[in-house]
């Protein structure tokens, strides 16, 4: 796993993009203190933008809405909540001593 930033560099209910092994990864921090990582690439809009989306909840599901056309993605699994056929890859992520560490891409949920 590599350290990409300090936790306090990510706003609560905000996201940042980081380069991990050459790939753009979006890292989010939720209100309850959890940190999630998924590919920054929005497959619907075909643009690398997910870190700039609004973070919220649908029922109990924490999600990010793409800033482009508002499709929602489950922060925990990368599953698109509006289209069962679409899923964004997620990444291992952990906070250690105030540092955010991102690891390997998870192939399936």
């Amino acid at each position, binding site marked *: 796993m*590599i*350290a*990409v*930033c*300090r936790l306090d*560099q*990510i*706003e*609560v*209910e*905000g996201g*940042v*993009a*980081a*380069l*991990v*092994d*050459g*790939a*753009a990864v979006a*890292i989010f921090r*939720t*209100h309850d203190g959890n940190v999630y990582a998924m*590919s920054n*690439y929005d497959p619907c*809009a*075909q*643009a*690398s*933008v997910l870190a*700039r*989306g*609004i*973070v*919220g*909840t*649908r*029922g109990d599901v*924490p999600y990010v*809405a793409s*800033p*482009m056309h*508002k499709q*929602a993605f489950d922060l925990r699994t990368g599953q698109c909540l509006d289209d069962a056929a679409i899923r964004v890859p997620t990444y291992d992520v952990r906070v250690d001593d105030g*540092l955010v560490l991102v690891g390997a891409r998870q192939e399936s949920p």
Partner: protein
Amino acid sequence: MSPHHRRTIVVVGHGMVSHRFVQAAVERGLTETHDIVVVGEEPRAAYDRVALTSFFEVGAEALSLLPDGAYDDPRVRLVLGVPVEAFDPETRSVLLADGEVITYDELVLATGAAPFVPPIPGHDLEGCFVYRTIEDLEAIRAAAGTATVGAVIGGGLLGLEAANALSQLGLETHVVEMAPRLMAVQVDDAGGATLTRHVERLGLSVHTGAMTERVLGEHRVTGLALKDAPAIAAEIVVFSAGIRPRDALARAAGLATAERGGVLVDERCRSSDPHVWAIGECAAPGGRMYGLVAPGYSMAEVVADALLGGPGTFTGADMSTKLKLMGVDVASFGDAFATTDGALELVYSDAVAGVYKKLVVSGDGTRLLGGVLVGDATAYGVLRPMVASGIPLPDNPEDLILPAGRGVPETSLPAEAQVCSCNDVTRAQIEAAVAEDGTCDGPACVTRCTRAGSTCGSCKPLVKRIVEDFYATQGRTVDRSICEHFPLTRQELFDVVAVHELRSFDQVVAAHGTGRGCEICKPAIASILASQLNGHVLEGQTRTLQDTNDAYLANIQRNGTYSVVPRIPGGEITPERLIVIGEVARDFELYTKITGGQRIDLLGARMEQLPAIWRRLVDAGFESGHAYGKSLRTVKSCVGSTWCRYGVQDSVQLAIDLELRYRGLRSPHKLKGGVSGCARECAEARGKDFGVIATERGWNLYVGGNGGATPAHAQLLAGDLDRETLLRYLDRYLMYYIRTADRLQRTAPWIDSLEGGLDRVREVVVDDALGLGSELEAAMARHVDTYFDEWQATLEDPDKLARFVSFVNAPGTPDPHITFRTERGQIAPAEPTGPVSLGSTIPVGAP
């Protein structure tokens, strides 16, 4: 009938009913076989006489029922400003005052009625008027310029309208009524007393039971002499003592007329000559004339139907009335005077609030027969159809008139109940319009498509209620909650934020919501907080509430880059500034385009370039154009009087002033304005949320224009305003919109959604009926005083700038996903290729 043998219908008069007849004829295909010639004596096409009094505020143009002055259908010829002198049933021809003779196959008389002027001495002195046409009102307005006191003879519906007009023209006003109460035809004694109190509170003097003996004066009016009462001094007298059908043409032609006047016609509106028909106020079906527009409309439809060979008949009309007089609701319907045997009365009266309501119910208490409402007539919409359809009264009939919660009391009307009496639309028709396979998506659309609610407007609340209830039965959402996190509408959210002085999303959720919000409520709350606090949109917690455009103070593009739109107020720009924009575009390799909003868009900026680009622009004196915000965009201008040979006012200066006044104002949706220097309207101001058009005397203010997918022309709110009044009205209008509109609702649908529509806006903005005026102005003053350029503020704040990086761990590395190609000599986004990898690990800088 062979299409080669076309026939001719001549219509005499071009008033409201004539216009409806022509509309029906065109819509139903009568013009496929007939030419129609309409001859009207007034100098203009039909206008909304029912709304005549608003002429003083909105002018003639806004009242017109045919703004283009001609029908689209070329087979309809409209002759205006020429009276018909006579017609001859033998030769089937009409003679016009200018000598033209037109032969007809069918003749339709729609000559309306004329005010009755009692033949008392002095009735023709200079200063005596009637109240029927736009010319009458123009003459009254001209005379009012030099007068101080006016008197209206007649305290009926029209007399009170005329009195209201005199008082609004600044005259001390008297109403003289022979009967013991006002509106004697419609309301009972107690209702009349309540009405008198309202009218007197507005500063008018009411004289009931007063008989005018003569009009005093030599050449000009000086006053009225009353029987058994002191004389009244007055320089203007308006007669409003009833109307008489204009049946002179028919009399002269030897047609049968009714005993009390009017062309006598049968159930199909056919006169004693089989080729002559009469409709509207000049007609007396079965011997009775109807002084309201709705029965006239029905007659127009009946004759159009008859000429097409249809079976329609006119069998009498509902004479129920509802109106708003001087801001006071008055309604009367059904058996208002309890003349039915055994009828019972149920009365609710609140003297302090000035409300009087009476229901007349059948002796056994099962059916509603009629009623009178003064001061609050919200229940009219549902009560009138209850009378007409005879449905059983609910168990607690008093609930129908007790102060209501939801505006319109709960009840279920049968499907065939007529909801809109002006346009004869039933509940079933309204429901069909909004059914799954119907054509309408809501109450405003129903009004446009079925005409329900488009005439007097009194049925609008009921139309809305029927649509909502229908949706509810269908399981379609009528839930107006903004999203799953807040059980509130945007307006309610706005109010709770204001009342409880909430300052952050967390406070709003804690007080009223659940969960952690979403892309719907977060930007809406951000906008509400911004309208009320005018803080920086990237301040603290509000940053994460913003849509991406606001979050980066720029508009996101399809490839994840952004556009930059500096403000160019009114579209005016110096060569030096133009050069700066060119240089910035060149140095950062941006695509440039002139926008439809009279400014320049620089596209293709990477997020991390935005601060450097704006540094250059801000240093050159530019500021944010808010192209990204739900806020004021541009105020478009034409060159105006400075250069243009037609211009009558400096439209550029005003556009700049307005743009600078309202820049940065966060609102439910974007806002656009326009200012034109004369009526040629080169700035397309009437396509804007607020449009200002110069007149010789000042500025006309139009509101509710919209381009986009559902274009709408802005409507005149007020005319000939001086600059100060214009700003005051605009401040109020915009703040009222910001407070009450739904999220992402532009001004046009917002105005449509208000009960009363544009009239409501006028009441609040111009008449200050809610007494909110100074509060709305103060809110706008706060905005103007605390405005700052949010890009400049961002450049000065390292915390905010820290967000403008491509990668948190590699701030200088451009996003490899963004690539460009060249098109017409400038950059354009390259086709997307899927996730792009730099193929190597970027070392992490010290965190």
